[in-house]
């Protein structure tokens, strides 16, 4: 065995600076390659968890990493490089997934899905602004239910992943939390409808 070089690990921000210094130069391209190589497994793992299919995840991860490379010149290091890369990955994956509703979610309640088009609760939700929904969630759900529901509906996180990231230990995992949260939301919406509150309805 020979040539054991000292392993020096430049930070992400140092690599960004190098990569932006002379984008066409050899050193800058190597820095960009090293930077994105460092994050490639994380991007792939995240895409896989979102999409649940290796080929789709590879496709998405490739697009995310190459998009980051193409737009590296526009990146302004205001925080961790990961936040910027994550935003690209999120936009890429979220756009190709079906967004679960606050009221109906086939992954959580496969047997309790009425026709959303005729469901008064769903119609009310569709007419409410995101801010009004946020207020409703805040005032009717406990913090764990709030976060689980928001992760599911707006971050489009898979139910199993919500169980893991929120450290939910009960046997039904996030599924039970989400079922309870949705039940409370339906009750709250029914009360809202009955009392005729506007709740941010702009129509």
């Amino acid at each position, binding site marked *: *065995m*020979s*040539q*054991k*070089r000292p*392993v*020096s*690990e*430049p930070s992400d921000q140092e690599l960004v600076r190098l990569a932006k210094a002379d984008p066409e130069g050899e050193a800058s*391209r*190597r820095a*960009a*390659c*090293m930077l*994105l*190589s*460092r994050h*490639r*497994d*994380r*991007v*792939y*793992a*995240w895409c*896989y*968890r979102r999409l649940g299919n*290796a*080929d789709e*995840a*590879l*496709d998405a991860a*490739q*697009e995310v*990493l*190459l998009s980051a*490379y193409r737009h590296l010149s526009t990146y302004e290091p*205001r*925080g*961790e490089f*990961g*936040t910027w890369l*994550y*935003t690209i*990955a*999120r936009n890429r994956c979220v756009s190709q997934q079906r967004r679960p509703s606050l009221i109906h979610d086939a992954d959580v309640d496969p047997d309790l899905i009425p026709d959303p088009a005729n469901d008064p609760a769903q119609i009310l939700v569709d007419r409410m602004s995101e801010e009004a929904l*946020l207020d409703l*969630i*805040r005032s009717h759900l406990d*913090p764990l239910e*709030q*976060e689980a*529901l*928001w*992760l599911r509906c*707006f*971050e489009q*996180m898979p139910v199993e*992943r919500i169980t*893991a*990231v929120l450290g939910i230990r009960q046997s039904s995992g996030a599924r039970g939390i989400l079922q309870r949260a949705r039940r409370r939301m339906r009750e709250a919406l029914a009360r809202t409808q009955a009392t005729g509150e506007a709740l941010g309805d702009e129509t």
Partner: protein
Amino acid sequence: MKPSCYSLEELVVAAEQPRGEPRREHLETCPRCRAALTAYRDFMDERDRLPAEARAAECSGRLQEILEAQILGEPVTRSAPDARRAGGLRAGDGRRARQWLARLFVQAWRPAWIVAAASLVLAIIFIPRALHREGERGPSMRGPDMRDPASPGQVMLVSEARVLAGGDLEFAWAPTEGVDRFDVRFFDKGMDEVARRDAGRATSLRLSAAERTEIRGAHLWQVVGLRGEEEAARTPLREIPGPGSPD
């Protein structure tokens, strides 16, 4: 985003603030900001392993090849199963190629296609004749002969690493014409070379479980074929399989 909500960069900072600090206070009471930060932390978290069907090591290797090809201009190669799965192209290229072909066959492009087809027929007829005459005059190509299988930068097509029973690691690659000896090089995740082994003329290298400590910290491997002291060929970078994945 609500006016009072923070950007992801600010949320990362907010989480580090002491209780009572306004940004931290907001984070604790806003489900949207909490969910955004939780989702980001999930992205950054590498503790949870993916299931076998995610083919994590293989996809990681493919992504590395793609990054090198796109950023450093180094050629992409893949094993036969990869090529079949990806339709002989990079992941995603199949869809893009179909869209591109669909655009090419629209009515407006038909005259161009006719001209191209006619040019191709003429080229098939005349180029072999021209090359034959060129051969009679003797070689006159300048620069490296791209038909030489050991031209600098050539990529050896087959390379694989596997864990054998007993924990030994075996690296194997294709024999390559015009190469005097092979170096097996090991790199960490930051692409720093951490070790190198001279394999001589052999086309495989075996490391015992004990010898694996010598490449501790290495994440990727590559074989470089040398002619004299000059690099004549090399394999793409590939991931070193973990100790728990015997074939």
